[in-house]
């Protein structure tokens, strides 16, 4: 194994900072009993924990995909080592066969042959138009008729393996939480039964899937022959970054401006209202397009800033997040302003004013916590909305860098193929299913969090 050079992309920095912040918040929560109690309630919520498990799986994929490096090229000793132009991530390394085993063009899931006919020289038969065998997909099979048996056998074998792994895990949990029955009936404080059930589902699907992925293209291949499963895995990080970083840009602006406008009224309110009305009255896509194109020009005129294509794509992704964040805070801001207008007339706010509590303290202690449910709902809604917005923007050609895989680009590439006969459905279906799971899990988890933090419902 030759050496490698660690590459730190800007988005990696943000991602790992977020992880660190998450750990920090966790430590703070552990120190404050009321917060801990609230998170215990989240932990007791079965739906919440099931979706958290699923979310965690997505996050693990995203995190693995956020450790980048460049492989050293084989050079002569003594000469300064050259590194490959291609930036890889740990995830790429783990699924190397998926990344490298590219076909020529489309092939259906579990296909043995390509999806398009080609002219092939056959000794004795001359040139024939037929579906050629895939280079990698099912190439270990001598007889394509045994495909079903082979798939079933592998799936069963690895499925059993996954089951054993799960049983071992469940045994550990049961041992620590006082017996199988307690876990099964949900008598434990933490909703272990939900977590275990979700884990079972994840393991039973993923383990056979990856075992089969070595020999087959389980989700088929796309136009240029790349494995769809690999694209899905790479898209997860893009979606998470777009969802999270954009939210991080948008949230402070929306919350701060919304509350300030609603609480202080007067000219402050006028200015903020003017600002978001103006922003809102410009067609969103147009505004984003203008900003993205400007940014693209800047990037294109400064190629010397970027050592690799990946760095350029990454900066473009971050810029996109930033632009999306700047343009999408208005809705939440307006909502929070209205709610603050209502809250500020409530008697407990007036009671606080009568005590001479300072305005900022009232905002922090009395208004913000009572707006959190709206913020959480809006966040999750926006998360799914942003993932979708990315798809739309990629369609117009102003989304993420073409070299970067995202659900948006996948859907976009698959879009044209829906019109052809026979239809190419797998790209779209796979992207849709992955996005659906991600967004649904995020929604359900946010619901659980909101319920747990509402003292009235507890």
């Amino acid at each position, binding site marked *: 194994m030759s050496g490698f050079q660690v590459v730190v992309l800007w988005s990696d920095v943000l991602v790992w900072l977020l992880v660190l912040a998450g750990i920090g918040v966790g430590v703070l929560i552990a120190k404050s009993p009321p917060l801990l109690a609230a998170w215990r309630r989240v932990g007791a919520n079965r739906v919440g924990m099931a979706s958290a498990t699923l979310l965690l799986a997505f996050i693990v994929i995203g995190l693995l995909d956020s450790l980048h490096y460049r492989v050293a090229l084989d050079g002569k000793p003594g000469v300064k080592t050259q590194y490959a132009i291609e930036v890889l991530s740990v995830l790429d390394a783990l699924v190397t066969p998926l990344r490298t085993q590219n076909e020529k063009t489309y092939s259906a899931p579990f296909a043995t042959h390509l999806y398009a006919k080609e002219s092939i020289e056959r000794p004795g038969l001359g040139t024939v138009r037929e579906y050629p065998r895939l280079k990698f997909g099912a190439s270990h099979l001598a007889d394509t008729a045994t495909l079903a048996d082979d798939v079933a056998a592998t799936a069963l074998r690895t499925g059993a393996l996954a089951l054993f792994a799960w049983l071992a895990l469940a045994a550990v949990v049961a041992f620590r939480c006082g017996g199988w029955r307690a876990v099964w009936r949900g008598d434990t404080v933490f909703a272990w039964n939900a977590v275990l059930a979700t884990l079972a589902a994840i393991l039973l699907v993923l383990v056979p899937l990856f075992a089969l992925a070595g020999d087959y293209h389980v989700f088929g291949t796309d136009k240029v022959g790349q494995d769809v499963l690999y694209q899905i895995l790479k898209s997860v990080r893009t979606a998470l970054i777009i969802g999270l970083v954009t939210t991080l840009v948008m949230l402070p602006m929306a919350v701060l401006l919304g509350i300030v406008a609603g609480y202080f009224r007067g000219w402050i309110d006028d200015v903020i209202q003017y600002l978001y009305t103006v922003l809102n009255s410009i067609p969103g896509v147009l505004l984003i397009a203008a900003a993205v194109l400007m940014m693209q020009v800047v990037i294109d005129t400064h190629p010397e800033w970027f050592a690799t294509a990946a760095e350029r794509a990454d900066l473009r992704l971050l810029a996109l997040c930033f632009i999306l964040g700047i343009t999408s805070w208005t809705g939440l801001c307006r909502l929070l302003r209205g709610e603050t207008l209502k809250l500020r007339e409530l008697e407990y706010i*007036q*009671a606080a004013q*009568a005590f001479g*509590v*300072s305005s900022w303290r009232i905002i922090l202690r*009395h208004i913000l*916590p*009572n707006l959190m449910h709206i913020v959480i709902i809006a966040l999750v809604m926006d998360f799914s909305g942003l993932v979708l917005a990315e798809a739309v923007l990629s369609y117009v050609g102003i989304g993420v860098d073409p070299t970067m895989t995202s659900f948006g680009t996948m859907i976009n590439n698959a879009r044209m193929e829906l019109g052809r006969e026979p239809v190419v459905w797998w790209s779209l279906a796979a992207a849709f299913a992955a996005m659906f799971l991600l967004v649904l899990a995020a929604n359900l988890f946010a619901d659980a969090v909101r319920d747990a933090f509402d003292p*009235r419902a507890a």
Partner: protein
Amino acid sequence: MLEVKDLRLGFSSARQMLAAVDGISFTIAKGETFALLGESGCGKSVTAQGILRLLPAAGRVLGGSVRLDGEELLALPEADMRAYRGGRMAMIFQEPATSLNPVLTVGRQIGEVLERHLDMTGEPARQRMLELLRQVGIADPERRLDEYPFQLSGGMKQRVMIAIALAGEPELLIADEPTTALDVTVQAQILDLLAGLQAERGMGMLLITHDLGVVARMAHRIGVMYAGELVEVASREDFFTNPRHPYTQALFAALPEVSRRGQKLVTIPGQVPSLAAMPSGCRFADRCPQVMAICREQSPAWRETTAGHVVRCHWQGDRAVDDAACHSLTELDLQAAQPFLEVAELKVHFPIRKGILQRIVGHVRAVDGVALAIAPGRTLALVGESGCGKTTVGKALLQLIKPSAGSVRLGGSELVGLSGRRLRAARRHMQMVFQDPFASLNPRLRVGEIIAEGMGALGLEKERAAQTAAVIALLQQVGLPAEAVGRFPHEFSGGQRQRIAIARALAVQPQLLICDEPTSALDVSVQAQILNLLKALQADLGVAYLFITHNFAVVEYLAHDVAVMYLGRIVERGQAEEVLRTPQHPYTRALLSAVPVPRLEGGEQRIRLPGETPSPANPPAGCHFHPRCPKATDLCRQTYPETTTISATHSVACHFPG
């Protein structure tokens, strides 16, 4: 006519059925008013909804029968039931503001009933609508018919609601707290109207209320409900002369009245048991002063004491509540010392803006020149109907609303115009207790944090340990356990929440507590607890109260001084005895006579005020009260009267006092 037998209604919640109404039976004859009386959460409204089969989604009829002229209503298919609702039975709801559809005209809403039940459309329907509106006492019905609910005042909306109910010519009228949301003078009008209509048409009426005064005014027979059961049914005479059930007696004893001035009110300890934890024996046992061993074991059966007077109680004695136990609590003839808060010419005007440029086109004169003085340790009651500006006065005193003019002097220093640090220091001396205990506590903070907020903001107790100790001491002072510190407000009942709000205000040791209708959202028995607490606190700490209220019973019971407000101005002020015994302003007299008295011999001669309070944006010229005043002359229409002094403490703003 209506016969309810063993009606059981319940709510399904989390796999179990909770019975909200548990086997109640009563009958209503034609032309009779049967009043269901009880505190909130006793199942009164659910009963009414059950009779009309309008239960909320989680509600279920568990058993029993409801017969109207022998027809079993609970067995009817839904389509037939619709002919009964609004047709033979009609309902009036509590809140006139929300029971009319805001986007339909009055005419459309009455016409809907006529079309559905009488097949009346077009011109005959219109004639009938006009007739109905005239019957419910709406002037100029032709114009009102085409107006929308927002163009009507609260009292008129309730009249329209009654007209809608009458449109189907019902034999039974169900009125669910029909006047609770209205002012006393309007309440008197509506009650008169209902009584008149009922006598005229011979309708049966089921009146649901918590107000003993309304019961005394309206009912022929009374059923007292407690925790989903009827506990006593009696005729009006028997009920008011000889209540038998300890709960009924306690309800009477808990009423604040002038005769109880200076005494501690009788309270009912504890609260109504929750649906999930109903005791198996008598449901009142845990709160009953006469509880016996048998009460906890078996539910008492009906027992007839006199003809038509039945009661559900094991105890056979006569008077459960011992009046002698009410010991004197506060010094009432406290000498008026030098006032420490003086308010002069206080004005709060809200600008009305119109047009694109938001030009000021007028002012709402919410408070228009109010003068008050409060002495230490005394209670000043500020009385008036809704919209007269009394709450605004309270907030302007605290500088929560900036007064437009005038002065508020606290211990000699001027508050108006203060800001920042000096205002904060001054605020220490005045605090406020708000009307709605559900809106005045932040649901996301713990009780301890809520109470400590003032101390922290005003920099009183900096150290954590001292602060916690102070909070616990305050909680004990208002009669709450120390463990309440770590709990959230929603875990407490309305009365307990109001105690928390009082503790929060007391935390900064104010000399003046502004109480803005602190008991109007509470039940009678809980109101008594809070009034007792306020009195005890005044005796212990010597706080002065500015008591903002519309409830004269509370004023009579509690106040040393009274100021009566009408449309932003004080029309009469003086010591409580003077104002209440010898009211000089016609408005004060009308207010006093409009209050329904919870006694048999209540209604001697009543003064009925026509109309409602005008808008403070456009007050009548001259004396504000002249359009409703029986004594008004040309002089009243032209000039606002000077303040006339009756005695050293008693003054009135009227051209013709007395």
